[in-house]
C-alpha cells in the first residue's frame, strides 16, 4: 500500500541503484535489515520523507533514498529491500546484496529487531562477511522491554566488532545516537575488516584454492574471501553483478574457471556437494548467531508471545477467522460510506458556490463565452466533482485501512486466505500483493517482486487489477451510495451501500482466484511453489501519525493526481460537448458511436467514453460521466447527492446500469501508470498486452452476461 508520491505514479519506476553524482562531502549509507524491523520508520525519521511503512514483510519494494544532514555532513540514505539473508535467492536479496557489495556505500546500517535478535543476527553476520563498514542498530528496544527482553548492546558491539546502537524509532529514541555512530563510522573510513567466519576445514581449503585468483583480478573492488566463498557455493549471479557494476569480468577468466573446477572436485571428493555445502555454510552462520544471541540477550519472561497468540487464536481461527476478516472490512466500508455522505454534500455546495463567483468574475472581466466555458464549466466543474465525490471517502477510508495495516493485520489476511490461493495454484504471497493492490495497483505490481517464481509472479501481476485500487473505490462507493443505496427502502442506505461495495470486493477477490487458476491451467502452467510468510507481532498503531500520513501522503497525493488528469480532461469534455459538427456535438458523435456496444454491456456511450478518457486515472470516470450529462442536458443545480441521482436517472440509469458500471469499474484495463509498470516489471510487451486483455475481456463478458440476462428475464 505504499502510496506516496514516490511509490506510485511514475516515481515507482525509478528503482535503479545508480545514485548519480555525489558531492564530495556526501556519504552514502545503505539501510539493510530483515523485513518488518522498522527500517522504513527509521528512514522516514532521518530523512523526513514520508515513505509509507506497513507492519508486514516485504514492504520496501523500491529503493527509496533520501538525504539528511548531521552536524556538518550530508548523508544519502538508501533504503534497500528487507531480506532475511543475502544468499540472493530472490530478486530483492540480489538487489540488497549487490548494493552492499558493489554500491560502495560508505557505511551499511543493519537494522535489527530486539525482540527477535537471534534471527536478525543471521543477516548481520552475512553483511559483516562482505564488509566491515557496518553499524548495527538494535531497534524496537521499547517493545523488547515490554516483553522483558534485554539486549546487552555493549557486549554485542564487542562481539561483532562494529558500533551497535539501540533505538526505538517509533518514539524517536536512539536516532541521534544512530546518526552519531554513522557520522563517526564514515569519518573513520574503513577501519573495520570484514568478519571472517571460519567454516569447515574442507570448505576453507576450497576457498584457498579460489581466493587468490579473485583477489588478483578484482583487486579491492570486492571482498575476495567472500566472493570466493560465493563462487564455490555455485553462485554465478555474483560474477554477473560484478561485471555489470564494476566492469571486472571474471566469467571468462580461464584460470579462475579452472581453479573453481578444481575446488569443486576437491569438495566432491570430500563428500561436500550440492545442498550439503550450503547447509554447512548456513548452519555455521545460524549457530554463530545463536551463540551470540545467547550471550547478549536475556529474556525474563519466556511467554512474551501470549498476547499475540491470544489475538491470533481468534482472528485466524477456523471458526472466526474468515467472518472476522469480512466484518472488519465491512466495518471499514460502512464507516466510509456513512461518514462520507455529509461532507460530500457540504463540499459540493461550497464548490458550486465558488463556481458562481467565478462565473461572475469572468463576466465582470468581459471574457469571451468560450473562455468561461472552457475554464469554469469544463475545467473547474470537473475538478469540483473530483474533489466533492472523491475526497470524503478517501479521507475516511485511507486512515482506517492504514490502522489495520499498522496493527499487523494484513499478513493475517494472507494467512487466512492462503488455502484459496494454493487451490488457485498461485503463490501464497499473492494475497499480500493483492492487498497492496487495494492501495494502488501499480504499487501492487511492483510488490509482486516478493514472489520468487517467475510463473507465479506473472499470475500475480496479471490478476492484480481485479481488486479495486483507491482510484476506483470512490467510484464504487459513490455509485452504491447515490444510486443503489437510495433505491432500496426500509433498510438504512449506508448498510445497503456497504453490502454492495463488499460484494464487489469479494467478487474481485473471487475473480483474482478464478483467473489465477485459469492462467495456471493454460498459459502459465505449473504447481504452486513454496512460500514462507512471517506473522509479525501486533503493534499498537500510532493514530496521530496515521492521520497525518494518510491525509498528506495518500489522500492529497491521490487527489492531486486525479486533479491533474481531471483538469485537462474537463476541458476536452467541454470542447467535445460544444463543438458542433453536423447538428450534434463531438461528444454526442463519440457517445453515439460507442452506444450500440455500450448498450450490450448495460452501459451507455457516455459511460464507456468516460472509461476510455479515464485511462490515465480511474478517479475521473464518475466526474466525466457527470460532466457529459450536464453539458448535454438541461442545467441542473447539482448541489446534493440526490440531485446527482436524479441526473443519472434522467439519463436512463437503472439499477442495472449502476451494477454494470461497478462491474466494469472493477474489471477493465489497468490505468496507464499500472500498464507502464507492468511493462517495466515484466520486460515484455506480450505480458503487458495480456494484462490489458484479461481484465478487459472479463469485464466485457461479465457485463454482457449480466445485462442480457436481466433484460431477457424481464427483471427490469
Amino acid at each position, binding site marked *: 500500500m505504499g502510496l506516496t508520491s514516490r511509490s506510485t505514479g511514475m516515481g515507482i519506476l525509478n528503482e535503479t541503484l545508480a545514485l548519480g553524482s555525489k558531492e564530495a562531502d556526501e556519504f552514502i549509507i545503505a539501510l539493510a535489515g530483515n523485513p518488518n524491523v522498522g527500517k522504513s520508520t527509521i528512514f522516514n525519521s532521518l530523512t523526513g520523507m514520508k515513505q509509507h511503512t506497513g507492519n508486514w514483510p516485504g514492504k520496501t519494494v523500491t529503493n527509496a533514498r533520501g538525504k539528511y544532514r548531521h552536524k556538518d555532513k550530508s548523508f544519502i540514505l538508501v533504503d534497500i529491500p528487507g531480506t*532475511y*539473508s543475502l*544468499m540472493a*535467492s530472490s530478486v530483492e536479496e540480489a538487489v540488497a546484496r549487490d548494493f552492499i557489495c558493489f554500491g560502495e556505500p560508505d557505511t551499511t546500517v543493519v537494522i535489527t529487531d530486539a*525482540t*527477535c*535478535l*537471534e*534471527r536478525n543476527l*543471521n543477516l548481520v553476520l552475512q553483511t559483516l562477511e562482505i564488509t566491515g563498514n557496518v553499524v548495527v542498530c538494535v531497534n524496537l528496544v521499547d517493545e523488547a522491554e515490554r516483553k522483558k527482553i534485554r539486549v546487552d548492546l555493549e557486549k554485542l558491539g564487542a562481539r561483532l566488532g562494529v558500533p551497535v546502537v539501540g533505538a526505538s524509532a517509533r518514539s524517536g529514541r536512539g536516532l541521534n545516537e544512530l546518526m552519531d555512530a554513522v557520522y563517526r563510522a564514515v569519518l573513520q573510513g574503513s577501519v573495520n575488516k570484514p568478519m571472517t567466519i571460519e567454516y569447515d576445514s574442507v570448505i576453507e581449503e576450497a576457498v584457498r584454492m579460489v581466493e587468490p585468483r579473485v583477489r588478483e583480478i578484482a583487486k579491492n573492488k570486492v571482498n575476495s574471501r567472500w566472493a570466493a566463498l560465493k563462487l564455490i557455493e555455485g553462485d554465478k549471479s555474483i560474477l554477473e553483478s560484478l561485471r555489470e557494476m564494476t566492469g571486472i569480468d571474471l566469467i571468462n577468466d580461464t584460470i579462475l574457471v579452472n581453479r573453481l573446477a578444481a575446488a569443486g572436485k576437491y569438495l566432491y571428493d570430500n563428500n561436500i556437494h*550440492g*545442498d550439503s555445502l*550450503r*547447509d554447512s555454510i*548456513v*548452519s555455521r552462520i*545460524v*549457530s554463530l*548467531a*545463536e551463540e551470540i544471541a545467547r550471550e547478549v540477550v536475556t529474556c525474563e519472561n519466556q511467554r512474551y*508471545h501470549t498476547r*499475540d*497468540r491470544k489475538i*491470533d*487464536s481468534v482472528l*485466524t*481461527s*477456523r*471458526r472466526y*477467522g*474468515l467472518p472476522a476478516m469480512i466484518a472488519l472490512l465491512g466495518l471499514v466500508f460502512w464507516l466510509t460510506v456513512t461518514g462520507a455522505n455529509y461532507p460530500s454534500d457540504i463540499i459540493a455546495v461550497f464548490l458550486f458556490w465558488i463556481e458562481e463567483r467565478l462565473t461572475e468574475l469572468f463576466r465582470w472581466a468581459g471574457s469571451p463565452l468560450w473562455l468561461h466555458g472552457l475554464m469554469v464549466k469544463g475545467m473547474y466543474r470537473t475538478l469540483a466533482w473530483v474533489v466533492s465525490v472523491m475526497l470524503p471517502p478517501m479521507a475516511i477510508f485511507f486512515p482506517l485501512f492504514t490502522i489495520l495495516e499498522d496493527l499487523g493485520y494484513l499478513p493475517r489476511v494472507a*494467512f*487466512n486466505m*492462503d*488455502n*484459496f490461493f*494454493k487451490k488457485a495454484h498461485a503463490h*501464497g504471497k499473492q494475497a499480500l500483493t493483492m492487498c497492496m493492490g487495494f492501495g494502488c495497483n501499480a504499487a501492487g505490481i511492483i510488490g509482486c517482486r516478493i514472489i*520468487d517464481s517467475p510463473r507465479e509472479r506473472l499470475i500475480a501481476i496479471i490478476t492484480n487489477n481485479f481488486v479495486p485500487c483507491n482510484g476506483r473505490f470512490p467510484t464504487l462507493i459513490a455509485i452504491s451510495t447515490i444510486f443503489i443505496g437510495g433505491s432500496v427502502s426500509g433498510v438504512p442506505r449506508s448498510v445497503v451501500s456497504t453490502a454492495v461495495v463488499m460484494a464487489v470486493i469479494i467478487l474481485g477477490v473471487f475473480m483474482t482466484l478464478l483467473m489465477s487458476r485459469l492462467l495456471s491451467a493454460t498459459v502459465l502452467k505449473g504447481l*504452486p*511453489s*513454496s*512460500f*514462507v*510468510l*512471517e*506473522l*509479525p*507481532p501486533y503493534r499498537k498503531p500510532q493514530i496521530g501519525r496515521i492521520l497525518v500520513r494518510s491525509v498528506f501522503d495518500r489522500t492529497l497525493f491521490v487527489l492531486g493526481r486525479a486533479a491533474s488528469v481531471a483538469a485537462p480532461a474537463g476541458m476536452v469534455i467541454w470542447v467535445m460537448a460544444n463543438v458542433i459538427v453536423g447538428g450534434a456535438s463531438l461528444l454526442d458523435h463519440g457517445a453515439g458511436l460507442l452506444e450500440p456496444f455500450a448498450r450490450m454491456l448495460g452501459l451507455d456511450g457516455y459511460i464507456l467514453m468516460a472509461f476510455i478518457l479515464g485511462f490515465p486515472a480511474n478517479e475521473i470516470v464518475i466526474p466525466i460521466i457527470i460532466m457529459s450529462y450536464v453539458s448535454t442536458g438541461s442545467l441542473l443545480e447539482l448541489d446534493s447527492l440526490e440531485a446527482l441521482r436524479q441526473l443519472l436517472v434522467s439519463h436512463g440509469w437503472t439499477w442495472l446500469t449502476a451494477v454494470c458500471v461497478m462491474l466494469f469499474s472493477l474489471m477493465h484495463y489497468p490505468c496507464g501508470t499500472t500498464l507502464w509498470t507492468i511493462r517495466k516489471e515484466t520486460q515484455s510487451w506480450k505480458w503487458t498486452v495480456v494484462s490489458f486483455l484479461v481484465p478487459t475481456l472479463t469485464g466485457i463478458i461479465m457485463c454482457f452476461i449480466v445485462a442480457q440476462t436481466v433484460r431477457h428475464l424481464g427483471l427490469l
Partner: protein
Amino acid sequence: MKREIFPLNLLPVGSAAKVRNLTNDGNTRRRMLDLGLIKDTRIEAVQKSPSGDPTAYQVRGAVIALRSDEASKILVEALTGE
C-alpha cells in the same frame, strides 16, 4: 528411550519439536535455512489457519507460516519434558 521422527505437518498445535532433517532442496531449502531451521532448532506449532493449512510455527523468536507441503519436508523429533 527411542525418539520418534515425523514430518513437521503432523506436529499438533501447541506442541514443540526439534528439527532433525530437511528433505526439500533448492530454493525452498534455502528459505528454510534462512529462517534458521537448522538441525536441533526448536520449533513450535502455534496456530492453524481457518482452512487448516497453512500452519503458523514459532522459530527462533519469530512466527512463520508454512504450507503443509513444505512442513511435510521438515523432519522433526518430539521434545519431551516440556
